């Protein structure tokens, strides 16, 4: 295990990821057995968001650079897989003018996913070459630029992406149990990365760039690794989105989704995987409650007024309160295994 500094950090990562997997899996299994049909949908969507949040955490949590382009990479993953996997007859109908013979081939789900991961990963790598050289606000603005550019292309190359119209006919490949397994896999990946030599060095460097420099850490290289890995996870989340929903459009991969998932990460605490998971769970369920209140329900004979926009206010309030009161999120640097095993002070 030479990617780890010590067997202790490996053990920590392993147990932490295992515990989180148990939590995540039990929620899913519970819903599969006892939930209504619409709960399955809801929870599936939550898992997709969990993947996005984890993809975001891998870069943001370890480098402390705000990334706002994650939904774009998710979209890329979704669209590339969708273009590959959708049957020719449907594409002839939905993408009659597609260039480069995009509507004249179809692949199986696995190859499509692999192509999507490869291409998105490559694009992440290319953009990463730019991002990692910038710091702070400059890096953030370039991530916004990526988001806008990708969205613009989705919107206006309607011959390939259909823009705001529906890209439909994607076969349903995944169900809830598949995404539970994928989530567990990604939790392990993210957790191992966090505890790896690279992760630890990255976090050290984001705390103090100069001293990390002096330690001989090549920040650029490490950031690039984190960015690309994050991009791959985001692509995976997009694939999961497309493979279940069957219909995608450019719309979901833009600012509102960016803010939603960002709030999830921030609430839990972006420095830790446990935080990412907790934030996702809390906001998913919290928003359900708030949305329900929004439409002015009657509870125990009490008629509440219609309060549209409440969920947006709640989301904004979560971000502001966390930033003001508890900058590190609910859990800060805490990881779940620390409940059970004593560990050295976390970096």
């Amino acid at each position, binding site marked *: 295990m030479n990617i780890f500094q010590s067997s202790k950090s490996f053990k920590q990562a392993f147990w932490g990821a295992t515990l989180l997997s148990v939590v995540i899996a039990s929620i899913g299994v519970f819903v599969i*057995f*006892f*939930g*209504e*049909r*619409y*709960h*399955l*949908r*809801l929870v599936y*969507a939550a898992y*997709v968001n969990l993947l996005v949040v984890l993809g975001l955490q891998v870069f943001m949590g370890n480098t402390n650079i705000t990334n706002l382009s994650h939904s774009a990479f998710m979209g890329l993953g979704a669209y590339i897989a969708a273009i590959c996997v959708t049957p020719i007859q449907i594409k002839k*109908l939905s993408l009659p003018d597609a260039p480069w013979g995009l509507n004249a081939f179809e692949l199986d789900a696995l190859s499509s996913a692999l192509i999507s991961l490869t291409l998105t990963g490559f694009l992440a790598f290319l953009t990463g070459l730019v991002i990692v050289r910038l710091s702070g606000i400059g890096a953030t603005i370039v991530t916004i630029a990526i988001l806008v550019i990708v969205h613009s292309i989705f*919107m*206006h190359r*309607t011959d390939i992406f259909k*823009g*705001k*119209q*529906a*890209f*439909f*006919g994607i076969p349903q490949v995944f169900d809830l149990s598949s995404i539970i397994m994928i989530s567990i896999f990604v939790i392990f990946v993210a957790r191992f990365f966090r505890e790896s030599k690279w992760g630890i060095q990255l976090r050290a460097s984001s705390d103090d760039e100069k001293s990390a420099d002096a330690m001989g850490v090549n920040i650029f290289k490490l950031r690039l690794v984190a960015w690309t890995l994050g991009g791959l996870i985001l692509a995976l989340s997009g694939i999961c989105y497309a493979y279940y*929903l*069957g*219909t*995608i*459009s450019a*719309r*979901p991969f833009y600012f*509102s989704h960016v803010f939603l998932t960002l709030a999830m990460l921030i609430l839990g605490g972006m420095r830790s995987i446990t935080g990412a998971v907790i934030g996702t769970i809390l906001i998913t*369920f919290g928003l*359900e*409650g708030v*949305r*329900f209140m*929004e*439409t002015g*329900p*009657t*509870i125990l004979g009490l008629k509440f007024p219609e309060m*549209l*926009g409440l*969920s*947006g206010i709640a989301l904004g309030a979560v971000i502001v309160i966390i930033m003001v009161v508890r900058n590190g999120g609910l859990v800060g640097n805490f990881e779940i295994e620390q409940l059970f095993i004593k560990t050295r002070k976390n970096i």
Partner: protein
Amino acid sequence: MKPFFKKISIPIFASFLAFPVYADTIKVGFPVPLTGEYAPYAEIQGAKCMAEIINNKGGVNGKKFELLVQDTGTDTQTAISLTEKFLDQGVVAIGTIPFSDTMIPVAQIAAGYGVTILQAQSTQVEMHTGIVDNFISNVSPDPFTAAAAAEYALSEGVKNVVLLTSDDGGSWSAKTPLWFGEVIENGGGKVLSKMNFSIPTSDWSPQIAEMKKLSSSPDAVYISSIMPDVGVLVRQMKAAGIDAWVFGSDGLDDPSLDSVADSDKSILDKVAFGTLAPSQPGSAMQEFQAECKALGMPVDGMFPALGADVIMALAYAVEKTGGTDPVAIREALRSADSIPVRTVESVSFKNNKSHAERTVPVIGFKNGVRVLLSNAIPRFVPNWK
């Protein structure tokens, strides 16, 4: 085990108590965009008001309407999960975000229950190409509104037109202008130029400078966009001295367009739009809005008002079939020669199955007040399927 789950999940999924299950109601599901980008298109105000009106009169065959409404925040995933939820509660029809990226998956899921997606305002053409069978739109698709506007334009002697297109509103803003152009060319006119814009646009001066550069000046400009952008276009064109008609689609049918004439009554004289239902003073829609206002349920704008038609169509079908079987209701809708609705006299789905056959009004302005310029089924509609 299941009741146990329900009991403990109340605080979490807090939504179970909200919809007490009455056996004898006509449930209609509305996972709609009350917030977010597409909030202006929600039909819910009119649907609620019409349901109230019918319920106050004792309902249909003694059954009352029960509308299950929840906000999707213009998010497809949310719309889909809410659809599942409403389907499990036994709705007879669903109205949702009126864009194909939501309507297609929602329709696919509803198909398993035999439930129809019944849209009050959806004009997108994609839904009529046979992707799904359980889709019905209560209005005419975009080519019809474009054709109606073009026919009126031709009757006003319009020859040279400029088309403003954008991908930001899907085919509605990208293709509708082209259909308009096709009808104009079919009538002997000419498309001078196609220009691009984005939604939102709050300053049209670059496009207007392009228009002035054209070799011959346009008689009309066609745009399928929304307010307030279109209002800006109208004022800036006038300011730039371009004396051309501005034609548009249902997006212009927003009460805030009228206020453009606040300081200059004549500014809207050459503005007209093909729309979904007549909205001028004295129209059935305005009467309906006044009635709802009196009920304390204000309905502002055309899209919100169109919800009434959906409820009336459902009421008709329930009465016809004597029950609430969703498939039977769809059949009843599709086999009727004429179904009475509120914003126009009647609609029929007999010929087209997936969209209403109804007259397409063209609305213009006289002295800053809306007037009905024409209201007919257009003679020439471009090939759009």
